[in-house]
């Protein structure tokens, strides 16, 4: 399920990214083409302007020529020359502007001929004026060819203007079409993107819901399992109690009637049932750990350690145990559970140093690298263990020593780890066979510490 979920989310994410990339490209391309179209519109307008200017210049040259023919004033001749020059420039400008348009090129070719005719006619008449005087020149004006060249020029210019205007209309329509297309595709892409985002969000939400349900189920199953363990252990106690009780009466009342072997067997029955009782009790307290609600208050570790050592007095009083207790911080946790952890570890240290002539147990604290935690260690010079089994130590009913060597059920360290982990800390161990062991656990520091709770860094 999680793999499928991940694939879905990743796919949704990629699709969303792709869609937004498409939206960005469409927007960019649309802006580009819009800009291009706009430049075309500007271009068309300049062509139109140039054409209007060109026609104006042509008409003006014709007027200058006429005035010259009437008056013979050289001044008009100069103006005519200037206008002719401008006319040529304007013609070249138009030629450049419409270089891309074959239709207009062809019209322009015709216009060129018309202008040439017009100019030739005018030049001819002005030459007549210069050579033969006014009447002959005026007379030549009456000839039709001069008129038609100007009309042709006019017609051709308006044809070209009409063509440019048509192009302008087409281009405007084109711009509008592409704008509409852009709008539609942007709306579509955005909707698609939205759709993907909604469906991805839905998938995520559904997954979260199903995870929540699964978590609830898991918690319920866990509680059920805890309850089952509890009631199983509980119900097993009753027959065991009877077994032990009756064996006890047998031992008390029929002791004399049994021979040595019988007494030995009875003793074994009693010991085994006692051991099973201990196992059941341990199982009960371990399963209870998962169900208990625990408090979080200030716990003075030094007090806890002192009390535990006091409690272990009966076991240590006949032995020489050297206690090395360093400064201990205040921590945050459930007082009775923390007491249990400390008791289990110190009791272990006492137990496993039993065979040492000079037992030494050191308890201290170190600043933890993880913020807010404090590491506490209990070090002994007892039987130790092989490091390769270090992790097994903390499993339920897992032991590294035979019961004949050191008694116990193997629940103590499992409880330590469980309690510590429920507090958000860790528990671990280091050791060497026959040299000793160091058990460490980390617990949250008491936060409202006013600095009196000193934590000393301890070197080994």
């Amino acid at each position, binding site marked *: 399920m999680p793999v499928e979920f991940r694939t879905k989310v990743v796919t949704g994410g990629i699709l969303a990214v792709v869609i937004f990339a498409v939206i960005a490209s469409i927007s960019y391309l649309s802006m580009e083409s819009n800009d291009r179209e706009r430049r075309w519109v500007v271009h068309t307008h300049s062509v139109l302007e140039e054409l209007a200017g060109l026609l104006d210049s042509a008409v003006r040259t014709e007027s200058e020529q006429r005035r010259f023919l009437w008056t013979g004033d050289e001044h008009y001749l100069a103006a005519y020359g200037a206008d002719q020059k401008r006319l040529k420039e304007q013609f070249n400008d138009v030629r450049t502007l419409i270089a891309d348009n074959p239709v207009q090129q062809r019209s322009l070719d015709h216009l060129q001929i018309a202008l040439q005719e017009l100019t030739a006619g005018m030049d001819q008449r002005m030459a007549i004026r210069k050579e033969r005087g006014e009447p002959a020149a005026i007379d030549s004006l009456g000839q039709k060819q001069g008129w038609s060249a100007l009309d042709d020029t006019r017609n051709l210019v308006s044809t070209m203007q009409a063509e440019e205007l048509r192009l302008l209309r087409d281009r405007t329509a084109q711009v509008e079409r592409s704008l509409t297309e852009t709008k539609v595709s942007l709306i579509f892409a955005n909707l698609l993107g939205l759709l993907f985002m909604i469906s991805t969000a839905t998938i995520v939400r559904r997954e979260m819901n199903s995870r929540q349900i699964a978590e609830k189920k898991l918690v319920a199953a866990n509680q059920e399992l805890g309850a089952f363990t*509890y009631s199983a252990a*509980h119900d097993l*106690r*009753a*027959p*065991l*109690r*009877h077994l*032990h*009780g*009756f*064996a*006890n*009466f047998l031992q008390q009342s029929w002791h004399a009637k049994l021979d040595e072997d019988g007494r030995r067997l009875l003793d074994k029955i009693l010991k085994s*049932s*006692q051991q*099973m*009782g201990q196992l*059941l*009790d341990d199982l*009960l307290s371990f399963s*209870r750990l998962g169900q208990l609600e625990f408090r979080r208050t200030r716990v003075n570790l030094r007090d806890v350690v002192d009390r535990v050592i006091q409690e272990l007095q009966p076991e240590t009083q006949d032995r020489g145990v050297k206690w090395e207790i360093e400064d201990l911080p205040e921590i945050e946790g459930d007082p009775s559970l923390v007491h249990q952890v400390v008791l289990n570890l110190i009791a272990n240290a006492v137990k496993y140093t039993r065979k040492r002539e000079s037992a030494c147990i050191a308890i201290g604290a170190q600043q933890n690298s993880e913020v807010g935690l404090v590491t506490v260690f209990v070090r002994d010079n007892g039987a130790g263990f092989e490091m390769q089994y270090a992790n097994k130590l903390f499993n339920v009913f897992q032991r590294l020593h035979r019961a004949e060597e050191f008694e116990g059920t193997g629940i103590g360290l499992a409880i330590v780890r469980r309690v510590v982990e429920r507090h958000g800390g860790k528990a671990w161990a280091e050791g060497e066979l026959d040299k000793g062991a160091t058990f460490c656990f980390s617990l949250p520091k008491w936060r409202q510490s006013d600095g009196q709770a000193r934590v000393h860094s301890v070197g080994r």
Partner: protein
Amino acid sequence: MDKLEYILLADDNENDLELTQRALSQHKLVNEIVIARDGAEAMDFLYRRGAFASRPEANPALVLLDIKMPKVDGLEVLEAIKKDPRLQHVPVVMLTSSRLGPDVDECYRLGANAYVVKPVDFMQFADAVKTIGKFWAMLNEAPTGNVRTAGAGS
């Protein structure tokens, strides 16, 4: 040694009954042990009903109640005793297989005088029963009509 007049022992488990009886008689603490096999029988005895209609009037010096019993459980019997002005001074010790669960608090709330977990180790249990017996035997002459609120005993 002072002896309890008689005690009422309510337990549905035959083995537990035999063991408790043996433990009590071993220490010669009791003149008589009246057995009830479930809560209903215990109620009948206390209220002199049914099979116990003709029993002598005297109340038991101590009631040992198993919590888990068929028909009427130990908590119900306890509640009835502690609500009845004629019975409420009779000390009641609750017997249970477990020290866990809501039972402990509930027992004390209902006015139990002690709460004893039956240990697996029979000798421990025998010692517990002996201690309880001695304790209540010594208080045997206490004034009647008052609710005894002894906190210890287990």
